[in-house]
């Protein structure tokens, strides 16, 4: 093939999930096959079909930094011999033959060019020379865009194959736990830190580094490696060790979960989601104090949230105030689940688990239950975000401020004399952003122009902002920008931008005529800003 006794690469035409399993067994020589791992085999089969995989190039004898770190930390001292080199599997969405690729490497002019390979590149999987769990760093392109799927934490990623630089337009590295230096929590954190290392410029820890960081100052009852899991305190410690601040939220219901995930994901920050898994096809025996038999608990699991699907047609009004948040249109989140695969789907609607005799909201997973079908549901326990230290104001504070403000307008609109009734009902889009991203977006959105636009673009703002955009129908009516770097007691309203005069004139009139000392302190911050700028 390339003049050496040991082949350095092999080109294979892909024709299905069974094919991939066979490639792993005969060419990559994994000691177990995907056939033994039903969920993963089916997942990769479906995913490869979705991204239209046609050709595989195996790159043998590949040195993977992450695996090398794990190898040096643990595997090298095992009596059993483990290889230190991996096999990297490259994926392409066009068909080409081994002869054609040989010709390309030999410099001949043919079908294959650098541009051809780059245009058709779908990403790669590193296969580690380990038994059982062998998928190392995996960077595969996201699902194709359909207008409702969003992967705000996905980023460009480069790979070099025999001197050809290849680019994956949108991905976030994934790897499955090896159950030695990394359990699920380590893998989930590792993926999240791959993203934050790029946006917040910190070091890029390998899985073994993550486990060590997590367990150095929070000693476990037993040894840290082999690792059998991390608790939230350990995960938080690993985040601190890379120079970031952990932000922990506990949430179960759709409104809080969707709102929190959306707010940070849209700001480019991935979340580690800790869940309890329950199998609805198996029940434990009911006890006298329970009204229903509990679903059998499988265990506690951690995944990285990397995207969402805005599949619901309209925002769902929340609670007694009927507050409408855009994030409630989410019907699926996408996660790196080391037991399923990258960009695995979790459904947010119509799933419950019976726990303690009560039915509680849960996420639908693609895990296989004890019977046929996806019967395993995930009850959210924690959401953990690695944040830059300057992001101090949490989402919940902004949500409270906007919710109170929205309800004040709605109540006055409902009860004050006309013509206030013409003020529209609002849907709020709340998310974290940066000053640069906000100003770039404002230029694209074409909501304002002329001197007003120039005034906003040239005004000084903090690096991190919470953006709360109010809309009615297709019309954007205002933006409230909050300083994410402020303290909670501070004023923290940076700017309010009125786009269509539909709501702000009323609010300004309230600020000018109602004693604002009687307003809630959070609403007072918005009113004080409007009073200041109206003078």
């Amino acid at each position: 093939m390339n003049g050496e006794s040991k082949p350095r690469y092999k080109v294979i035409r892909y024709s299905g999930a069974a094919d991939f399993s066979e490639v792993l067994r005969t060419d990559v020589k994994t000691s177990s096959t995907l056939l033994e791992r039903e969920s993963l085999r089916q997942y990769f089969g479906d995913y490869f079909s979705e991204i239209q995989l046609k050709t595989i190039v195996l790159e043998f004898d590949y040195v993977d930094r992450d695996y090398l770190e794990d190898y040096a930390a643990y595997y090298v001292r095992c009596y059993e011999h483990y290889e230190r080199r991996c096999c990297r599997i490259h994926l392409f969405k066009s068909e080409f033959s081994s002869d054609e690729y040989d010709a390309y490497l030999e410099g001949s002019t043919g079908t294959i060019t650098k541009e051809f390979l780059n245009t058709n590149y779908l990403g790669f999987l590193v296969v580690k020379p380990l038994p059982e769990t062998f998928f190392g760093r995996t960077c595969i392109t996201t699902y194709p865009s359909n207008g409702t799927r969003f992967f705000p934490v996905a980023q460009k990623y480069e790979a070099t194959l025999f001197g050809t630089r290849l680019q994956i337009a949108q991905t976030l590295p994934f790897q499955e736990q090896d159950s030695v230096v990394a359990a699920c929590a380590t893998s989930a954190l590792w993926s999240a830190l791959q993203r934050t290392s790029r946006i917040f410029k910190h070091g890029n820890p390998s899985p073994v580094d993550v486990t060590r960081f997590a367990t150095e100052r929070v000693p476990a009852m037993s040894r840290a490696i082999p690792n059998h899991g991390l608790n939230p305190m350990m995960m938080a410690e690993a985040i601190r060790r890379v120079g970031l601040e952990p932000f922990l939220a506990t949430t179960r219901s759709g409104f809080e979960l969707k709102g929190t995930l959306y707010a940070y994901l849209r700001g480019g920050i991935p979340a580690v989601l800790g869940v309890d898994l329950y199998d609805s096809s198996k029940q434990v025996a009911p006890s006298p104090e329970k009204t229903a038999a509990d679903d059998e608990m499988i265990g506690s699991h951690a995944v990285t949230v990397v995207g969402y699907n805005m599949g619901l047609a309209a925002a769902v009004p929340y609670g007694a105030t009927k507050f409408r948040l855009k994030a409630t249109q989410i019907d699926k989140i996408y996660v790196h689940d080391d037991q399923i695969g990258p960009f695995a789907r979790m459904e947010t609607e119509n799933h419950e688990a019976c726990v303690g005799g009560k039915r509680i909201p849960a996420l639908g997973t693609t895990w296989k239950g004890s019977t046929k079908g996806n019967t395993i549901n995930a009850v959210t326990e924690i959401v953990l975000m690695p944040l830059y230290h300057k992001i101090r104001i949490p989402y919940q504070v902004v949500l409270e401020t906007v919710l109170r403000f929205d309800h004040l307008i709605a109540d006055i609109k409902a009860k004050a004399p006309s013509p206030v009734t013409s003020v529209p009902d609002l849907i709020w889009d709340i998310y974290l952003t940066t000053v640069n991203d906000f100003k770039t977006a404002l230029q694209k959105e074409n909501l304002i122009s002329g001197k007003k636009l120039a005034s906003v673009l040239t005004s000084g703002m903090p690096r991190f902002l919470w953006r709360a955009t109010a809309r009615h129908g297709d019309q954007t009516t205002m933006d409230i920008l909050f300083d994410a770097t402020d303290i909670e007691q501070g004023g923290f309203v940076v700017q309010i931008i009125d786009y269509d005069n539909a709501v702000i004139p009323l609010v300004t009139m309230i600020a000018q005529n109602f004693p604002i000392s009687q307003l809630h302190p959070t609403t007072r911050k918005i009113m004080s800003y409007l009073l200041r700028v109206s003078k």
Partner: protein
Amino acid sequence: MNDRPKASAPARETAGSHPTLQAWLKSEDATVVVNEANRLSGMVIDELERRQQLDPSELQKPFTV
């Protein structure tokens, strides 16, 4: 300032000085409405906060599967 004004007619009416509305905002009725709005949104927020309280034992539970 804004080169593309999009104000609807009734809303623009409120932008100026609407004497009825201004008078109402200064009245006891407005105070009652605002207090009720504060009470209801406070209730919703308390419920949100209550649901987010962390059981300290959860911090010790490892994610292992």
